[in-house]
């Protein structure tokens, strides 16, 4: 049986070059980078090289990169650390309705700590309207955080336009670029943001590698107190192998981005076009053009996502879903609901995210495998039976 991994939005495989550069740091180069001997020097050198490469990927200064253990940590650090650093100026923050839970729930925690939160809506494509940000800004607003692209629906947000508004009002603007950095061009100067989160396992680096970039002069309160690692902003002995791998992944992401995306876009567009061509009553979620290169997401009506995942998995295909049944909290995806989809339709969510290892044959296989699975589940579905009865009556 063919194995097709189409879940790169959850995490990507490690590239062999990345693994190779990490291995010595899991072996002989085990020193603590804070130590003043040869072992420490070697580890420190590995980290600082990686810092330069990660900074290069996003057009930043190396000294403004703070390594963390994940995208989630970076987002927690940004939301809590930036808001707390400015609470004397005000206690109002703004996020969008489609943020990752690490942003949304950090903002909710701030609410418990006495901050006020405004959640701006999105349109049916999942796009934030910059005017809604403008209207939500108050004299006491100290932080705006808008995701660069949602990994659930792939829609790319108008970050530059929002940055023009926040700059005018001198409000700190953070973006969660975990789904975009290393995938599409991300430049902190062009975007005009003040802080940006990224993670290595989204672009063929290791899990446990994340970073937060904070513009020089913007204050942030550390979440982790302890030693003076990461310029005193993030204490704790560094995960040297992961950071070194992160650096290599960033270097390759920068040099190969164009060729990777040329290939991914072709494969993605085939999924977006050919799957709805074979299955009736299926909705493409997210923006038709302003979307991540390897990202195809759908809602298949009358059936549920987990059942689709299980049957696809039995055919060797790995995908994911935002259906309530697949979430541990058993709640429908907040992103799909924010885009105005009904709970019943959101149940049929299906997300395919391509990676550099995927081929045209993989796409052929998925396009061939999915329709009979959908048909099989629809034959079991009382909702589909109702739809068919209505349809026949209508005719």
């Amino acid at each position, binding site marked *: 049986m063919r194995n097709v991994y189409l879940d790169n939005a959850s995490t990507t495989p490690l590239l062999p070059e990345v693994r190779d550069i990490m291995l010595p740091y899991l072996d002989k180069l085990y020193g603590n980078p804070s130590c003043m001997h040869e072992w420490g020097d070697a580890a420190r050198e590995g980290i600082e090289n990686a810092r330069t490469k990660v900074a290069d990927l996003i057009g930043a200064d190396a000294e403004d990169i703070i390594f963390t253990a994940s995208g989630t940590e970076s987002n927690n650090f940004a939301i809590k650390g930036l808001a707390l650093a400015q609470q004397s100026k005000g206690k109002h923050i703004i996020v969008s309705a489609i943020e990752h839970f690490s942003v949304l729930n950090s903002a909710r925690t701030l609410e418990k700590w006495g901050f006020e939160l405004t959640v701006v809506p999105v349109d049916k494509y999942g796009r934030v309207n910059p005017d809604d940000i403008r209207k939500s800004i108050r004299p006491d607003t100290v932080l705006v955080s808008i995701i660069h692209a949602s990994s659930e629906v792939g829609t790319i947000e108008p970050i530059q336009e929002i940055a023009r508004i926040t700059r005018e009002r001198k409000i700190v603007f953070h973006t969660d670029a975990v789904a975009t950095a290393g995938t599409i061009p991300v430049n902190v100067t062009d975007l005009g943001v003040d802080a940006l989160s990224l993670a290595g396992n989204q672009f063929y680096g290791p899990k446990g590698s994340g970073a937060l970039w904070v513009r020089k002069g913007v204050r942030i309160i550390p979440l982790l107190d302890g030693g003076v690692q990461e310029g005193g902003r993030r204490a704790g002995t560094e995960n040297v192998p992961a950071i070194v791998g992160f650096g290599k992944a960033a270097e390759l992401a920068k040099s190969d981005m164009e060729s990777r995306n040329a290939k991914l876009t072709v494969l993605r567009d085939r999924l977006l076009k050919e799957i709805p061509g074979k299955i009736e009553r299926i909705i493409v979620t997210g923006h038709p053009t302003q979307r991540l290169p390897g990202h195809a997401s759908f809602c298949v009506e009358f059936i*549920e996502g*987990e059942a689709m995942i*299980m049957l696809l*998995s039995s055919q060797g295909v790995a995908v994911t879903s935002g*259906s309530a049944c697949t979430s541990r909290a058993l709640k429908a995806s907040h992103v799909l609901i924010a885009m105005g989809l009904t709970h019943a339709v959101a149940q049929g969510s299906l997300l395919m995210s391509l990676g550099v290892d995927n081929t045209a044959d993989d796409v052929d296989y998925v396009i061939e495998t999915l329709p009979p699975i959908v048909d099989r589940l629809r034959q079991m*579905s*009382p*909702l589909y039976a109702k739809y068919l009865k209505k349809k026949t009556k209508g005719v």
Partner: protein
Amino acid sequence: MPVYSDKVMDHFMHPRNVGEIENADGVGEVGNPVCGDMMTFYIKVKDDRLEDIKFKTFGCGAAIAVSSMVSEMAMGKTIDEALKITPQLVADELEGLPKQKFHCSNLGAQALHKAIEDYQSRKENGKKVKRGGKK
């Protein structure tokens, strides 16, 4: 994806008694698509026994397996026996269900009982109509 027992996987991959019964003696529908799961059971009754059972289910793997298992457990049973099938018994027969899925997916017994209620009330009404006809 939750970890399902082999029995759940078997019933999900090869569900028994999927479909509808035309002119069923009783139909029971539970759940709604908003909460994620919806099941419809159809029964045919002869001499107080469930002669045939079919179902349709909108929902996750567990919901489909539960429906299939309930249909199998109740097939050929008397009405009284079928009414004794509980969600816990269904879960036990399936060698367990993930804890968080127990309530939302385990609606099969309820749907079957509703179909039986439907059958019983139709029978009652039928008698009334007949009596009315004699007058």
